[in-house]
């Protein structure tokens, strides 16, 4: 039975339409996967030595143990957003003569070999090898590793039980926050406490029974839960959330684009993929920390222009690059309705303007790293407003690939094509080249001012520019309608 299921799984993977994606995306995804794996392995190897350097007073192994609890919480958090529960695939088997218990075991078993479980192995395995190399006793390290793997699996199954419940997500987030607060204000040292707990696992390897017992327990809970829910009307049925209606009266003040603005806001808020992108965009404001804390870059490095464009324009890119594919499900309706295409595009542009302003406001704290940081981010925000918004809308006219809004959010490359990769060149390349050239012939101040001026100019001319983009969209209408109809692209 398991062999059969696995065979079907194999076919569903290799015959899936996603495998028919363009070669470029496949290579890109493969590259990303290898990159992720390699960087995890490297950090697994490097972690010991790096921690030894940073915290010479306490052993690296103890440090790792202390932060494991945060790691596990974070993992649950990430899994909540990214991991897909493989429940829907089994609908056709329900009416076939297959025992429900074996279906259940199969689903649960398959999730054990999920990509996410291997992610942590990529880190912990090399780390343990280093431990052994450093002369830690084999048996103890092995017990510890086993314990970690068991805990990772436990999280895997807990995520199953959580089953995308927002309430539990908020609870987990609160717990992480509370832990951090307790730690920060020196009330209770959570990391110390859990660190000691995990260290016990190393000291007494036989304690590995506890995490293994945990896995067995959550597996059993999952089994109980799933087995009784293996009916069409229970878990398999798409959960229908109660609709929240709101008339968003405040959008009225935007005049004729108001209906589209309302539609876009509902689009973003009521669909998982778009909603996740909002959170990702907000989180990306921290991206700059990586570069600003590195001493290698001066305060006026072109790399920081890249960071500025990226941080203030992350939503512009994430959302903007798939305009108008977001509306692909009902694009033929939009095109046969009494819709002025210009208002439609103006509403999208307006939404992106707001996002750029919000992201800039969030980036203000970077002034801590010097006034140049604020100047760069401000110039980049203006440049995004004036130049990159029209650029992304223009590239949007090349979108012909459908996006199913119901599909999950992360790692979903649906709707992506070569245009999505090409668009990065003008978005980032142009301002960086501009900056490099101008600061070379002139000065940092001059380069920044020119970028800002370009942005202001583009913003001032947005009406005629949008008129021209509208014409392009109108011209490409038939191709878009036909493209958006193709479901398996």
């Amino acid at each position, binding site marked *: 039975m398991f062999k059969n299921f696995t065979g079907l799984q194999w076919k569903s993977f290799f015959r899936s339409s996603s495998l028919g994606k363009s070669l470029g995306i496949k290579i890109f995804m493969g590259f990303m996967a290898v990159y992720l794996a390699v960087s995890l392995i490297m950090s697994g190897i490097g972690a010991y030595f790096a921690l030894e350097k940073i915290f010479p007073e306490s052993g690296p192994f103890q440090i790792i143990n202390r932060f494991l609890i945060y790691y596990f919480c974070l993992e649950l958090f990430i899994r909540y957003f990214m991991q897909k529960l493989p429940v829907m695939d089994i609908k056709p088997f329900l009416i076939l003569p297959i025992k429900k218990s074996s279906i259940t075991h199969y689903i649960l078993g398959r999730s054990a070999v999920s990509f996410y479980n291997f992610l942590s192995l990529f880190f912990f395995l090399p780390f343990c090898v280093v431990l052994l190399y450093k002369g830690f006793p084999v048996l103890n390290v092995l017990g510890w590793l086993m314990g970690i793997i068991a805990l990772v699996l436990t999280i895997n199954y807990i995520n199953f039980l959580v089953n995308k419940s927002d309430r539990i997500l908020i609870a987990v987030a609160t717990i992480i926050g509370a832990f951090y607060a307790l730690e920060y204000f020196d009330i209770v040292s959570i990391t110390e406490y859990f660190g000691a707990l995990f260290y016990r696992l190393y000291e007494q390897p036989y304690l590995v029974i506890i995490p293994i017992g945990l896995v067995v327990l959550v597996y059993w809970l999952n089994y109980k839960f799933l087995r009784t829910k293996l009916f069409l009307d229970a878990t398999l049925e*798409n959960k*229908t*959330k*109660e*609709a929240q*209606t709101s*008339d968003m009266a405040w959008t009225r003040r935007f005049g004729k684009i*108001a*209906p589209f603005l*309302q*539609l876009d806001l*509902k*689009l973003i808020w*009521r*669909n998982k993929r778009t909603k996740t992108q909002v959170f990702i965009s907000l989180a990306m404001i921290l991206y700059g920390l990586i570069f600003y804390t590195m001493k290698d870059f001066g305060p006026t490095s072109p790399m920081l222009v890249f960071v500025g464009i990226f941080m203030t324009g992350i939503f512009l890119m994430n959302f903007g690059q798939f305009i108008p594919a977001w509306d692909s*499900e*009902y*694009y*033929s*309706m939009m*095109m*046969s*309705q*009494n*819709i002025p295409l210009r208002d439609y595009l103006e509403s999208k542009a307006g939404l992106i303007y707001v996002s750029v302003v919000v992201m800039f406001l969030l980036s203000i704290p970077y002034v801590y790293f010097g006034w140049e940081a604020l100047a760069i981010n401000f110039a980049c925000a203006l440049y995004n407003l004036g130049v990159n918004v029209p650029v992304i809308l223009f590239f949007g006219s090349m979108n012909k690939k459908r996006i199913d*809004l*119901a599909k999950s959010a992360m790692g979903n490359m649906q709707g992506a094509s070569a245009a999505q990769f090409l668009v990065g060149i003008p978005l980032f390349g142009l301002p960086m080249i501009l900056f490099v050239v101008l600061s070379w012939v002139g000065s940092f101040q001059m380069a920044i001012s020119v970028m800002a001026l370009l942005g202001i100019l583009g913003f001032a001319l947005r009406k005629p520019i949008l008129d021209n983009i509208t014409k392009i969209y109108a011209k490409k209408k*038939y191709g878009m*309608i*036909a493209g958006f*109809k193709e479901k398996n692209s």
Partner: protein
Amino acid sequence: MVQIENLTKKYSSKLVLNIQELNIPKGQSFGLVGNNGAGKTTLFSLLLDLIQPSTGHISNNEVRVDQSENWKTYTSSFIDESFLIGYLTPEEYFYFIGELRNRNKSDVDALLAKYEDFFHGEILGQKKYLRDLSKGNQKKAGIVASFIGNPEVVILDEPFANLDPTTQIRLKGIIKDLAAQQGVTVLISSHDLSHVTEVCERIVVLNKGEVVKDIQTSAQTLRDLEAFFSGNTSVQVTDLNTSEESI
């Protein structure tokens, strides 16, 4: 109201639609029947300028649909579920369509009140998004949305499919009323011969992209059509008719 001239549509040398001339006067209820692949949806898509004709053109109230967009103000349609916006509730969808057709909330509410019967309490106030409604209920919402804003031309592709019997009967009443009382030109396609003969004054049969029959509906139309689609010759049709008369 609708004029079709020399209209053809080719997909890589395969001719899927070829209509020399077809005129649909204002206020007519026009039915389109034909087997799968006969070109019904292609014709409707051309009417809505969703695809481009290979040759010829369609005029809607003297407006060439492929050259101007002015026809959109008085034409509305429901082709399939892709005309619905899944993440809206039915009410929000109706108000959105109303907004596009310059109708405010109370106008839309007034219109919806007229179709309370048709909705059968399953559309309004359900706190559900359109994507979570059943196929039949989605269809109901889409059909009623196409009546918003006093359109002069209403295009419905397969409106009877997926509907329950009660709703089918009510829909027939609504369509008849639209054409007869309000002078709306209604274009529908259907696989159900009895529905279409009951509702439409005129029926056009498409076969492999060509108009093979164009009839004013009469008492014997249904038999004619049934005979045509069962592949019988017209001789047998007359036989059937005479036999019925003799009874």
